[in-house]
Protein backbone atom coordinates (compact mmCIF):
# COMPACT_ATOMS: atom_id res chain seq x y z
CA UNK A 1 0.00 0.00 0.00
CA UNK A 2 2.23 2.76 -1.20
CA UNK A 3 2.10 5.87 -3.25
CA UNK A 4 4.76 6.30 -5.90
CA UNK A 5 4.05 9.61 -7.55
CA UNK A 6 1.77 12.60 -8.08
CA UNK A 7 1.30 14.67 -11.23
CA UNK A 8 -0.83 17.74 -11.88
CA UNK A 9 -1.63 18.40 -15.56
CA UNK A 10 -3.16 21.66 -16.75
CA UNK A 11 -6.02 21.85 -19.22
CA UNK A 12 -3.72 22.15 -22.22
CA UNK A 13 -1.97 18.91 -21.34
CA UNK A 14 1.21 20.40 -19.88
CA UNK A 15 2.69 19.06 -16.68
CA UNK A 16 2.63 21.73 -13.96
CA UNK A 17 3.63 19.68 -10.93
CA UNK A 18 5.44 16.40 -10.49
CA UNK A 19 6.55 14.63 -7.33
CA UNK A 20 7.93 11.17 -6.69
CA UNK A 21 7.71 9.38 -3.36
CA UNK A 22 9.88 6.50 -2.27
CA UNK A 23 11.61 4.39 -4.88
CA UNK A 24 8.79 2.25 -6.18
CA UNK A 25 9.30 3.61 -9.67
CA UNK A 26 12.54 4.55 -11.39
CA UNK A 27 13.33 8.22 -11.57
CA UNK A 28 12.95 9.75 -15.04
CA UNK A 29 14.19 13.07 -16.37
CA UNK A 30 11.81 16.02 -16.27
CA UNK A 31 11.55 15.94 -20.06
CA UNK A 32 10.33 12.38 -19.92
CA UNK A 33 7.70 13.30 -17.36
CA UNK A 34 6.54 16.13 -19.61
CA UNK A 35 6.16 13.75 -22.55
CA UNK A 36 4.32 11.17 -20.47
CA UNK A 37 1.93 13.76 -19.11
CA UNK A 38 1.13 14.98 -22.60
CA UNK A 39 0.54 11.42 -23.78
CA UNK A 40 -1.76 10.78 -20.86
CA UNK A 41 -3.72 13.92 -21.61
CA UNK A 42 -4.33 12.73 -25.17
CA UNK A 43 -5.20 9.18 -24.12
CA UNK A 44 -7.69 10.49 -21.60
CA UNK A 45 -9.49 12.39 -24.35
CA UNK A 46 -9.58 9.40 -26.70
CA UNK A 47 -10.86 6.96 -24.10
CA UNK A 48 -14.05 8.97 -23.71
CA UNK A 49 -14.77 8.50 -27.42
CA UNK A 50 -14.34 4.74 -27.50
CA UNK A 51 -17.25 3.94 -25.24
CA UNK A 52 -19.54 1.20 -26.55
CA UNK A 53 -22.49 2.76 -24.72
CA UNK A 54 -22.76 6.39 -25.65
CA UNK A 55 -20.94 9.14 -23.84
CA UNK A 56 -18.43 8.30 -21.18
CA UNK A 57 -15.90 10.03 -18.99
CA UNK A 58 -12.25 9.56 -19.78
CA UNK A 59 -10.25 6.79 -18.16
CA UNK A 60 -10.05 7.18 -14.41
CA UNK A 61 -8.00 4.11 -13.47
CA UNK A 62 -5.21 2.65 -15.57
CA UNK A 63 -3.64 -0.54 -14.26
CA UNK A 64 -0.37 -2.21 -14.95
CA UNK A 65 0.93 -5.32 -13.28
CA UNK A 66 2.55 -3.74 -10.23
CA UNK A 67 1.09 -0.25 -10.09
CA UNK A 68 -1.95 1.72 -11.14
CA UNK A 69 -2.75 5.33 -11.94
CA UNK A 70 -5.85 7.11 -10.69
CA UNK A 71 -6.90 10.19 -12.59
CA UNK A 72 -9.22 12.94 -11.38
CA UNK A 73 -10.49 15.34 -14.01
CA UNK A 74 -11.84 18.53 -12.47
CA UNK A 75 -14.54 20.74 -13.93
CA UNK A 76 -11.91 23.24 -15.05
CA UNK A 77 -9.93 20.71 -17.06
CA UNK A 78 -7.07 20.18 -14.63
CA UNK A 79 -6.03 16.55 -14.14
CA UNK A 80 -4.64 15.12 -10.94
CA UNK A 81 -2.83 11.81 -11.41
CA UNK A 82 -1.62 9.67 -8.52
CA UNK A 83 0.49 6.56 -9.14
CA UNK A 84 0.12 3.96 -6.43
CA UNK A 85 0.60 0.29 -5.82
CA UNK A 86 -2.18 -2.01 -7.03
CA UNK A 87 -3.85 -2.58 -3.66
CA UNK A 88 -4.13 1.04 -2.58
CA UNK A 89 -7.84 1.53 -1.71
CA UNK A 90 -7.79 5.25 -0.90
CA UNK A 91 -6.52 6.66 -4.15
CA UNK A 92 -9.73 8.50 -4.99
CA UNK A 93 -10.07 10.19 -1.61
CA UNK A 94 -6.38 11.06 -1.78
CA UNK A 95 -6.98 12.76 -5.10
CA UNK A 96 -9.86 14.77 -3.64
CA UNK A 97 -7.65 15.96 -0.80
CA UNK A 98 -4.89 16.92 -3.22
CA UNK A 99 -7.48 18.91 -5.16
CA UNK A 100 -8.47 20.73 -1.97
CA UNK A 101 -4.85 21.53 -1.18
CA UNK A 102 -4.40 22.74 -4.75
CA UNK A 103 -7.42 25.05 -4.40
CA UNK A 104 -6.11 26.41 -1.11
CA UNK A 105 -2.40 26.77 -1.70
CA UNK A 106 -2.19 27.37 -5.43
CA UNK A 107 -5.41 28.90 -6.73
CA UNK A 108 -5.74 31.35 -3.86
CA UNK A 109 -2.13 32.41 -4.19
CA UNK A 110 -2.14 35.85 -5.86
CA UNK A 111 1.39 35.34 -7.18
CA UNK A 112 0.61 32.16 -9.04
CA UNK A 113 -0.13 32.34 -12.77
CA UNK A 114 -2.81 29.85 -13.74
CA UNK A 115 -1.77 26.93 -15.96
CA UNK A 116 1.90 27.62 -15.20
CA UNK A 117 4.25 25.29 -13.29
CA UNK A 118 3.57 25.29 -9.58
CA UNK A 119 6.37 26.73 -7.46
CA UNK A 120 4.86 27.04 -4.04
CA UNK A 121 6.43 25.98 -0.76
CA UNK A 122 3.07 25.90 0.94
CA UNK A 123 1.75 23.42 -1.61
CA UNK A 124 4.87 21.27 -1.33
CA UNK A 125 4.71 21.20 2.44
CA UNK A 126 1.04 20.27 2.59
CA UNK A 127 1.50 17.54 -0.01
CA UNK A 128 4.36 16.10 2.05
CA UNK A 129 2.19 16.00 5.16
CA UNK A 130 -0.63 14.36 3.23
CA UNK A 131 1.27 11.83 1.17
CA UNK A 132 4.63 11.46 2.86
Amino acid at each position, binding site marked *: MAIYGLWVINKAGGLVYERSFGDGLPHLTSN*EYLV*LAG*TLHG*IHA*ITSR*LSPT*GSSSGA*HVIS*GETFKMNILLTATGTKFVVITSLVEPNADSMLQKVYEIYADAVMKNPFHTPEMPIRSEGFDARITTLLG
Partner: protein
Amino acid sequence: MTIYSLYIFDKHCTCVYYQDWHRTVRPKTAVEGGMLPAVYAPVYPSRNPDDASYSNRNTLSSSSGIVVAVNDDAPPASQVSQSHVAQQPPQPTSSLPFDEEAKLVYGVVLSLRNMIKKLSGKDEQFTNYQTSTYKLHLYETLSGYKFVMLSDPNADSLRFVLRQIYSGPFLEYVVRNPLVDMDSRERGIDNEYFRMSTDRLVRGLTVFQ
Protein backbone atom coordinates in the same frame (compact mmCIF):
# COMPACT_ATOMS: atom_id res chain seq x y z
CA MET B 1 -21.95 -7.50 -15.49
CA THR B 2 -21.70 -7.75 -19.20
CA ILE B 3 -19.28 -7.84 -22.07
CA TYR B 4 -19.56 -5.36 -24.90
CA SER B 5 -17.07 -6.23 -27.59
CA LEU B 6 -13.84 -7.92 -28.61
CA TYR B 7 -11.13 -6.73 -31.02
CA ILE B 8 -8.12 -8.70 -32.20
CA PHE B 9 -5.13 -6.89 -33.72
CA ASP B 10 -2.19 -8.57 -35.42
CA LYS B 11 1.42 -7.58 -35.38
CA HIS B 12 1.00 -5.41 -38.47
CA CYS B 13 -1.15 -3.09 -36.34
CA THR B 14 -4.36 -3.85 -38.22
CA CYS B 15 -7.66 -5.06 -36.83
CA VAL B 16 -8.20 -8.61 -38.01
CA TYR B 17 -11.30 -9.53 -36.05
CA TYR B 18 -14.19 -7.89 -34.25
CA GLN B 19 -17.21 -9.22 -32.43
CA ASP B 20 -19.73 -7.55 -30.18
CA TRP B 21 -22.42 -8.66 -27.81
CA HIS B 22 -24.21 -5.96 -25.91
CA ARG B 23 -23.01 -2.80 -27.47
CA THR B 24 -25.78 -0.19 -27.46
CA VAL B 25 -24.20 2.28 -29.87
CA ARG B 26 -23.86 0.43 -33.17
CA PRO B 27 -20.58 0.66 -35.07
CA LYS B 28 -20.82 2.59 -38.30
CA THR B 29 -19.85 1.11 -41.65
CA ALA B 30 -16.21 1.60 -42.52
CA VAL B 31 -15.16 3.75 -45.43
CA GLU B 32 -14.17 2.04 -48.64
CA GLY B 33 -10.63 0.76 -48.39
CA GLY B 34 -10.35 1.46 -44.68
CA MET B 35 -10.90 -2.05 -43.54
CA LEU B 36 -9.78 -5.55 -44.46
CA PRO B 37 -12.37 -8.07 -45.63
CA ALA B 38 -13.15 -10.94 -43.27
CA VAL B 39 -13.12 -8.92 -40.06
CA TYR B 40 -16.76 -8.19 -39.33
CA ALA B 41 -19.51 -8.50 -41.88
CA PRO B 42 -22.03 -5.81 -40.90
CA VAL B 43 -19.58 -2.94 -41.15
CA TYR B 44 -17.68 -4.04 -44.22
CA PRO B 45 -18.34 -1.58 -47.06
CA SER B 46 -19.11 -4.02 -49.86
CA ARG B 47 -20.40 -2.55 -53.08
CA ASN B 48 -21.80 -5.82 -54.37
CA PRO B 49 -24.35 -7.44 -52.10
CA ASP B 50 -23.35 -10.94 -53.13
CA ASP B 51 -19.75 -10.67 -52.06
CA ALA B 52 -18.26 -14.13 -52.08
CA SER B 53 -16.78 -13.95 -48.62
CA TYR B 54 -20.08 -13.05 -47.04
CA SER B 55 -22.69 -15.32 -48.53
CA ASN B 56 -26.37 -15.10 -47.74
CA ARG B 57 -26.03 -17.71 -45.07
CA ASN B 58 -23.98 -15.47 -42.80
CA THR B 59 -26.66 -13.06 -41.64
CA LEU B 60 -26.18 -12.40 -37.96
CA SER B 61 -28.61 -9.59 -37.36
CA SER B 62 -26.48 -7.18 -35.43
CA SER B 63 -29.20 -5.13 -33.82
CA SER B 64 -30.77 -7.96 -31.91
CA GLY B 65 -28.17 -10.70 -31.83
CA ILE B 66 -30.73 -13.18 -33.16
CA VAL B 67 -29.55 -15.32 -36.03
CA VAL B 68 -32.13 -14.91 -38.75
CA ALA B 69 -31.57 -17.54 -41.41
CA VAL B 70 -32.32 -16.09 -44.80
CA ASN B 71 -33.29 -18.84 -47.22
CA ASP B 72 -35.53 -18.86 -50.22
CA ASP B 73 -38.05 -21.09 -48.46
CA ALA B 74 -38.04 -19.37 -45.09
CA PRO B 75 -40.24 -21.14 -42.51
CA PRO B 76 -43.01 -19.02 -40.97
CA ALA B 77 -41.24 -18.83 -37.59
CA SER B 78 -38.41 -16.79 -39.01
CA GLN B 79 -40.95 -14.48 -40.69
CA VAL B 80 -42.32 -13.63 -37.26
CA SER B 81 -38.92 -12.94 -35.78
CA GLN B 82 -38.00 -10.88 -38.83
CA SER B 83 -40.97 -8.59 -38.38
CA HIS B 84 -40.16 -8.37 -34.67
CA VAL B 85 -36.67 -7.25 -35.54
CA ALA B 86 -38.02 -4.67 -37.97
CA GLN B 87 -40.25 -3.11 -35.32
CA GLN B 88 -37.42 -2.29 -32.92
CA PRO B 89 -36.52 1.41 -32.90
CA PRO B 90 -33.34 2.19 -34.86
CA GLN B 91 -30.37 2.08 -32.54
CA PRO B 92 -27.97 5.00 -32.31
CA THR B 93 -24.82 4.59 -34.37
CA SER B 94 -21.41 5.70 -33.29
CA SER B 95 -20.15 8.86 -34.94
CA LEU B 96 -16.91 7.13 -35.92
CA PRO B 97 -16.68 4.69 -38.82
CA PHE B 98 -15.59 1.27 -37.73
CA ASP B 99 -12.11 1.40 -39.20
CA GLU B 100 -11.31 4.67 -37.43
CA GLU B 101 -12.66 3.30 -34.21
CA ALA B 102 -10.46 0.22 -34.49
CA LYS B 103 -7.44 2.39 -35.17
CA LEU B 104 -8.21 4.54 -32.13
CA VAL B 105 -8.50 1.48 -29.95
CA TYR B 106 -5.16 0.24 -31.22
CA GLY B 107 -3.56 3.64 -30.73
CA VAL B 108 -4.78 3.93 -27.16
CA VAL B 109 -3.56 0.43 -26.38
CA LEU B 110 -0.15 1.03 -27.91
CA SER B 111 0.38 4.40 -26.23
CA LEU B 112 -0.68 3.13 -22.84
CA ARG B 113 1.59 0.12 -23.18
CA ASN B 114 4.56 2.31 -23.97
CA MET B 115 3.74 4.69 -21.15
CA ILE B 116 3.51 1.93 -18.55
CA LYS B 117 6.71 0.38 -19.81
CA LYS B 118 8.49 3.72 -19.55
CA LEU B 119 7.15 4.48 -16.09
CA SER B 120 7.94 1.15 -14.57
CA GLY B 121 11.38 0.84 -16.09
CA LYS B 122 11.01 -2.92 -16.44
CA ASP B 123 9.19 -4.88 -19.05
CA GLU B 124 5.83 -4.35 -17.46
CA GLN B 125 2.52 -5.13 -19.12
CA PHE B 126 -0.38 -2.74 -19.27
CA THR B 127 -3.43 -4.78 -18.25
CA ASN B 128 -6.57 -2.67 -18.23
CA TYR B 129 -8.11 0.75 -17.83
CA GLN B 130 -11.50 1.86 -16.61
CA THR B 131 -13.80 4.76 -17.41
CA SER B 132 -17.22 5.60 -16.04
CA THR B 133 -19.04 3.44 -18.61
CA TYR B 134 -16.65 0.70 -19.70
CA LYS B 135 -13.47 -1.17 -18.88
CA LEU B 136 -10.92 -2.20 -21.49
CA HIS B 137 -8.78 -5.31 -20.95
CA LEU B 138 -5.70 -6.20 -22.94
CA TYR B 139 -3.96 -9.51 -23.42
CA GLU B 140 -0.93 -9.62 -25.66
CA THR B 141 0.55 -12.85 -26.97
CA LEU B 142 4.22 -13.46 -27.62
CA SER B 143 3.54 -13.55 -31.34
CA GLY B 144 2.33 -9.95 -31.32
CA TYR B 145 -1.44 -10.50 -31.38
CA LYS B 146 -3.38 -8.18 -29.12
CA PHE B 147 -6.72 -9.27 -27.71
CA VAL B 148 -8.78 -6.31 -26.51
CA MET B 149 -12.07 -6.71 -24.69
CA LEU B 150 -14.51 -4.02 -23.54
CA SER B 151 -16.74 -4.85 -20.59
CA ASP B 152 -18.84 -3.01 -18.04
CA PRO B 153 -16.86 -1.03 -15.45
CA ASN B 154 -17.53 -3.32 -12.51
CA ALA B 155 -15.88 -6.38 -13.97
CA ASP B 156 -12.68 -7.72 -12.48
CA SER B 157 -9.76 -8.31 -14.74
CA LEU B 158 -10.88 -10.32 -17.73
CA ARG B 159 -7.38 -11.20 -18.86
CA PHE B 160 -8.04 -14.82 -18.08
CA VAL B 161 -11.00 -14.75 -20.48
CA LEU B 162 -8.82 -13.36 -23.21
CA ARG B 163 -6.25 -16.04 -22.46
CA GLN B 164 -8.96 -18.66 -22.75
CA ILE B 165 -10.07 -17.24 -26.08
CA TYR B 166 -6.47 -17.39 -27.24
CA SER B 167 -5.71 -20.91 -26.06
CA GLY B 168 -9.10 -22.26 -27.10
CA PRO B 169 -10.90 -20.99 -30.19
CA PHE B 170 -8.00 -18.94 -31.57
CA LEU B 171 -5.45 -21.74 -31.59
CA GLU B 172 -8.00 -24.27 -32.79
CA TYR B 173 -9.78 -22.42 -35.57
CA VAL B 174 -7.32 -19.78 -36.65
CA VAL B 175 -3.76 -20.94 -36.06
CA ARG B 176 -4.42 -24.55 -36.93
CA ASN B 177 -6.76 -23.71 -39.79
CA PRO B 178 -4.94 -24.14 -43.11
CA LEU B 179 -7.46 -21.94 -44.90
CA VAL B 180 -6.87 -18.89 -42.73
CA ASP B 181 -3.87 -16.90 -43.79
CA MET B 182 -2.72 -15.36 -40.55
CA ASP B 183 0.01 -13.13 -41.73
CA SER B 184 -1.77 -11.71 -44.72
CA ARG B 185 -2.09 -7.99 -44.99
CA GLU B 186 -5.24 -8.36 -47.05
CA ARG B 187 -7.68 -10.41 -45.04
CA GLY B 188 -8.88 -10.67 -41.51
CA ILE B 189 -9.35 -13.97 -39.69
CA ASP B 190 -13.12 -14.11 -39.55
CA ASN B 191 -14.52 -17.59 -40.02
CA GLU B 192 -17.69 -19.29 -38.90
CA TYR B 193 -16.16 -21.75 -36.46
CA PHE B 194 -14.05 -19.16 -34.70
CA ARG B 195 -16.94 -16.75 -34.40
CA MET B 196 -19.31 -19.40 -33.07
CA SER B 197 -16.91 -20.87 -30.57
CA THR B 198 -15.84 -17.47 -29.21
CA ASP B 199 -19.50 -16.56 -28.94
CA ARG B 200 -20.21 -19.75 -27.06
CA LEU B 201 -17.26 -19.22 -24.75
CA VAL B 202 -18.18 -15.65 -23.90
CA ARG B 203 -21.87 -16.35 -23.42
CA GLY B 204 -20.98 -19.22 -21.12
CA LEU B 205 -19.05 -17.00 -18.72
CA THR B 206 -20.49 -16.16 -15.34
CA VAL B 207 -19.76 -12.49 -15.86
CA PHE B 208 -21.88 -12.43 -19.01
CA GLN B 209 -25.40 -11.37 -18.33
